[in-house]
C-alpha cells in the first residue's frame, strides 16, 4: 500500500519497543477492548466502527459460533443456542441463578458451575465467555498489528472468588495472558481521576447489565486507594428489563411462553427501558408466535414504580460502604456514574438524593471501565515506569473457615487491602486425631450455610496427640487479582496441605486443557475467518487512505479523468469489502493499488519538496 507509507519526514513510524497490552471490559450486555496509543487510552473499534461488542454468543450445529451483533440479531429466532448475559452464570451453580424459569435456556443441573445445553453440545459459562474474549483479542491484534503481551480484564468489584476464577479461566481459554483482574469501579476511577486530576474522596456507582458495585476511593497524589467496596453481583439492567417483561405478561394475561417469545419480549422490554430514559411513555409492540399481537403503553411513572425496589436495592450497599470506610455522605467529593444502566433517570435521581449532589456523567459510562483497564494494562506491561501512580484495592467479601457447629470464623475481613495474608491457629478436638478438614467460605454471615462455599480440603498425617495439643496453622493469602489460596500446616511436624481455591466452581487445569484441545478443532475456521478479516481491514484502510489523498491532492495533481478512474476503483473495493469473498477483496485491493501508484509517486515528490523547504543544507547533512 504505497499511499499509506507516506509519512512526514523526520517522524518515525516505528515506536521503540512498545509492548501491546489491552484492557478488556467483559460486560454482561456489551464488551469492549481498549489500549493506550501515543499516551492516550482509546477504545478499539471493529471493522465497521463499532466499539461495543454485544456479549452474545450463538452456537451453530456444525460447532461454529457467531459472536456479537450477528448473534444478537438472531436471539429471538434461536434463543436456546444464543446465549446473552452469560456473565450472570460465571462461577454460579444452578441454584444461584434466580428466575431460571424465565430464561430460554436448557440448563444442565450438575454440581458446580451451571452448564447450558446447545446444539453444539454442553457449554460452560467459561467457554462462552472465552468466545467473547477471543473475538476481542482478534480485534485488538488486527488493529494493533501484533500479538498481545497481555490483558487486564475487569470484573465487578463485588465478584466473589468463584466468579473471579471463572473469569480468569475464560481469559486463559481465549489465549490471553492475564496481567491483572481489575475491579470495574477502580478501572473507572483511574480513567476519571487521571483525566480530571481529581483529589479527594470519590464514590463510583457502577450499575451494569447484570452487576452492581459501589466503591469509595481516596485519590491523592497519584495514589488510588479503595477504602471500601460493596454491591450486589446479581443486580443490573437485566433486572429492570425483567420487571417490564413481567408487567407485559401480567397486563396481557400471558403464560407459558415459548423460548423465542420470551426472548422477543425481553428484547422489547429492554428497548422500552431505553426509550423511557428520555420519553414520558413508550409503546411496546410484538407479534407472538401464536399470532397474538401485543400492544401496550408503558409510562415513565409506571416504569419507576415497577423498578422502585431495584433502585432501593442499590442504595443499601451505599450505606454499608460508607460505614465500612468510616465516612459520611458529607465526606464524598464527587460521585462518578459508570455502566449503561446509570442512564436511567430514576437511578440518577436516587443517587443524587442519597449523596446530596449531582453525579458526574462527563465520561461515557459504557467506555470508562475499558479505558481505565487499558491505562493499567499499559503500566503493567512495563510501557511506562508507573512510578507516578499506585493502585491499592481491597477484597470485597470476608473470607472465613467453618468451625464447630456450622459457624463461620472470619480470617480475612472484607475491605482488607490486597495482597493480604492472615493465619489462624486451630487445634484437634479428639485424642489421637490425625486428620482435619478445612472448609473455606466467603461471605459476611455467621452461619456457614448462608455463605458461599469455596472449597474443602483435608490436612492428613497429623501426629496423634491428646486433644488440643496439635497446632494447625491455616493461612489465607489473597493475591493482587483478589484470588485466594489456602494452606494448612501442622506446626510441630510440618505436615502441609495447600490448595489454590477453585475446585467447587472453578475448572481444574485438566478441564481447561481439554477445552483448549476442543477449540483447536475450530482453529482452521478461525484462521480462515481471521484471514478474511485481515483482508477486509486492509481494504478499509486503503479506501480511507486513497479518499484522504484524493481530497487533499487529487485536484492539484490529477486530471479529472484520472480522478474519476481512481474513484471508480474505490467504489468497487467498497462494494467488495463487505463480502465474505476474500479473493475478490484481494483482487480489488490490488487493482486500486496499481491504479494509484503514479499518484502516490507524485504525492511523495510533493511532500519531499515541501519538507525540504525551510531547512538549510547543514541540517540536512546531519
Amino acid at each position, binding site marked *: 500500500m504505497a499511499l499509506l507509507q507516506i509519512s512526514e519526514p523526520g517522524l518515525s513510524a516505528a515506536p521503540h519497543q512498545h509492548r501491546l497490552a489491552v484492557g478488556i471490559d467483559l460486560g454482561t450486555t456489551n464488551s469492549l477492548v481498549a489500549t493506550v496509543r501515543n499516551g492516550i487510552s482509546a477504545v478499539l473499534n471493529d471493522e465497521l466502527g463499532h466499539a461495543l461488542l454485544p456479549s452474545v454468543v450463538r452456537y451453530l450445529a456444525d460447532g461454529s459460533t457467531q459472536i456479537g451483533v450477528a448473534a444478537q440479531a438472531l436471539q429471538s429466532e434461536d434463543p436456546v443456542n444464543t446465549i446473552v448475559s452469560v456473565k450472570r452464570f460465571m462461577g454460579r451453580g444452578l441454584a444461584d441463578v434466580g428466575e431460571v424459569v424465565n430464561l430460554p435456556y436448557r440448563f444442565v443441573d450438575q454440581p458446580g458451575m451451571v452448564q447450558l445445553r446447545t446444539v453444539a453440545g454442553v457449554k460452560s459459562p467459561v467457554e462462552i465467555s472465552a468466545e467473547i474474549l477471543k473475538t476481542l483479542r482478534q480485534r485488538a491484534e488486527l488493529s494493533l498489528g501484533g500479538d498481545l503481551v497481555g490483558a487486564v480484564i475487569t470484573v465487578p468489584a463485588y465478584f466473589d472468588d468463584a466468579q473471579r476464577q471463572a473469569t480468569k479461566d475464560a481469559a486463559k481459554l481465549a489465549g490471553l495472558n492475564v496481567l491483572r483482574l481489575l475491579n470495574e469501579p477502580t478501572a473507572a476511577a483511574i480513567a476519571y481521576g487521571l483525566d480530571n486530576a481529581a483529589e479527594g474522596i470519590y464514590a463510583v456507582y457502577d450499575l451494569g447489565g447484570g452487576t452492581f458495585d459501589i466503591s469509595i476511593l481516596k485519590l491523592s497524589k497519584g495514589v488510588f486507594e479503595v477504602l471500601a467496596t460493596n454491591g450486589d453481583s446479581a443486580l443490573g439492567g437485566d433486572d429492570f428489563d425483567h420487571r417490564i417483561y413481567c408487567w407485559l405478561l401480567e397486563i396481557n394475561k400471558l403464560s407459558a411462553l415459548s423460548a423465542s417469545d420470551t426472548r422477543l419480549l425481553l428484547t422489547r422490554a429492554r428497548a422500552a427501558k431505553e426509550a423511557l430514559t428520555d420519553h414520558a411513555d413508550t409503546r411496546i409492540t410484538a407479534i407472538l408466535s401464536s399470532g397474538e399481537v401485543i400492544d401496550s403503553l408503558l409510562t415513565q411513572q409506571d416504569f419507576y414504580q415497577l423498578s422502585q425496589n431495584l433502585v432501593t436495592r442499590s442504595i443499601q450497599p451505599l450505606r454499608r460502604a460508607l460505614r465500612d470506610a468510616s465516612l459520611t455522605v458529607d465526606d464524598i467529593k464527587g460521585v462518578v456514574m459508570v455502566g449503561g444502566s446509570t442512564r436511567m433517570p430514576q437511578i440518577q435521581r436516587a443517587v443524587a438524593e442519597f449523596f446530596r449532589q449531582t453525579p458526574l456523567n462527563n465520561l461515557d459510562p459504557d467506555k470508562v471501565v475499558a479505558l481505565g483497564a487499558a491505562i493499567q494494562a499499559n503500566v503493567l506491561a512495563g510501557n511506562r515506569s508507573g512510578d507516578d501512580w499506585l493502585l491499592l484495592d481491597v477484597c470485597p467479601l470476608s473470607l472465613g473457615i467453618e468451625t464447630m457447629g456450622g459457624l463461620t470464623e472470619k480470617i480475612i475481613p472484607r475491605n*482488607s487491602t490486597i495482597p*493480604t495474608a492472615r493465619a489462624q491457629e486451630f487445634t484437634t478436638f479428639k485424642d489421637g486425631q490425625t486428620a482435619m478438614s478445612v472448609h473455606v467460605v466467603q461471605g459476611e454471615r455467621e452461619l456457614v450455610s448462608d455463605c458461599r462455599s469455596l472449597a474443602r480440603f483435608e490436612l492428613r498425617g497429623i501426629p496423634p496427640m491428646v486433644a488440643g495439643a496439635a497446632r494447625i496453622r491455616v493461612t489465607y*493469602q489473597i493475591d493482587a487479582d483478589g484470588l485466594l489460596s489456602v494452606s494448612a500446616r501442622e506446626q510441630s511436624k510440618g505436615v502441609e496441605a495447600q490448595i489454590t481455591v477453585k475446585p467447587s466452581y472453578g475448572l481444574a487445569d485438566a478441564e481447561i486443557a481439554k477445552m483448549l484441545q476442543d477449540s483447536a478443532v475450530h482453529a482452521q475456521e478461525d484462521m480462515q475467518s481471521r484471514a478474511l478479516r485481515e483482508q477486509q481491514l486492509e481494504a478499509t484502510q486503503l479506501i480511507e487512505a486513497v479518499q484522504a489523498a484524493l481530497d487533499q491532492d487529487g485536484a492539484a495533481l490529477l486530471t479529472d479523468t484520472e480522478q474519476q478512474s481512481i474513484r471508480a476503483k474505490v467504489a468497487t473495493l467498497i462494494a467488495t469489502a463487505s463480502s465474505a469473498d476474500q479473493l475478490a477483496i484481494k483482487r480489488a485491493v490490488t487493482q486500486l493499488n496499481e491504479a494509484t501508484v503514479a499518484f502516490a509517486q507524485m504525492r511523495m515528490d510533493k511532500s519531499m519538496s515541501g519538507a525540504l523547504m525551510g531547512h538549510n543544507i547543514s541540517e540536512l547533512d546531519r
Partner: protein
Amino acid sequence: MQVDLQQDFFSLFNLPARFNIDSALLEQNYRALQSQVHPDKFAHRSETERRVAMQQSTFVNEAFQTLRKPIDRARYLLTLHGVETHEETNTAMPLDFLMQQMDWREALESALAARDLSVIEDLENQLQTDNRALLQQLATALDVENDYQQGAGLVRKCRFLEKLAEEVAAAFDELDN
C-alpha cells in the same frame, strides 16, 4: 528493592516504637514503600519476582494495618516488649465494666428487636466515647509509665468494646436488609 521481612513494623516505616505515632507520616511512608514493592510494579517480570513482590507487598500491608488501628498497634507494641494480652483466656474484668457491657448488650438486642435505629446510633456514639478514653489511658500506660501489664489489661478492655462495635455494625447491616 528488597524489604527485610524480619524487621519489626515500626522500623519498617521508620517510626519510633511507641503507641502515639504520627499517623500522617505512617501513611506517607506506607505509600512510598508500596510504590516500590507492589505487584503492579512487577507484573511484566519473572514469576519469581512477581511472587517476591506479592510477599513483600503483603508484609507491608499487614504492617500498615497493624499500626493503623490503635488496639492492634498496642497489642503489637506489647508483644515487642514480651507481653502477651491473652484476650481469649483472660477475661477477668472489674465488675462495673462488666455490668456496663451487659447493659449495652441488652440495649442493643432490644433496639434490634424494635428496629430502632436511633438507639443503635446512640450506642455507637457512647462506645466511641468510651473507646477514646481507653486509648488515652493506653497512651499514658505505654508511652509514659511503660507499664505493660496495665497496658495488656487496657487492650483486653478495648477488645470488649471492639467486639461490641462489631455487633453494632452487624445490627446496622441487619436493619438495612
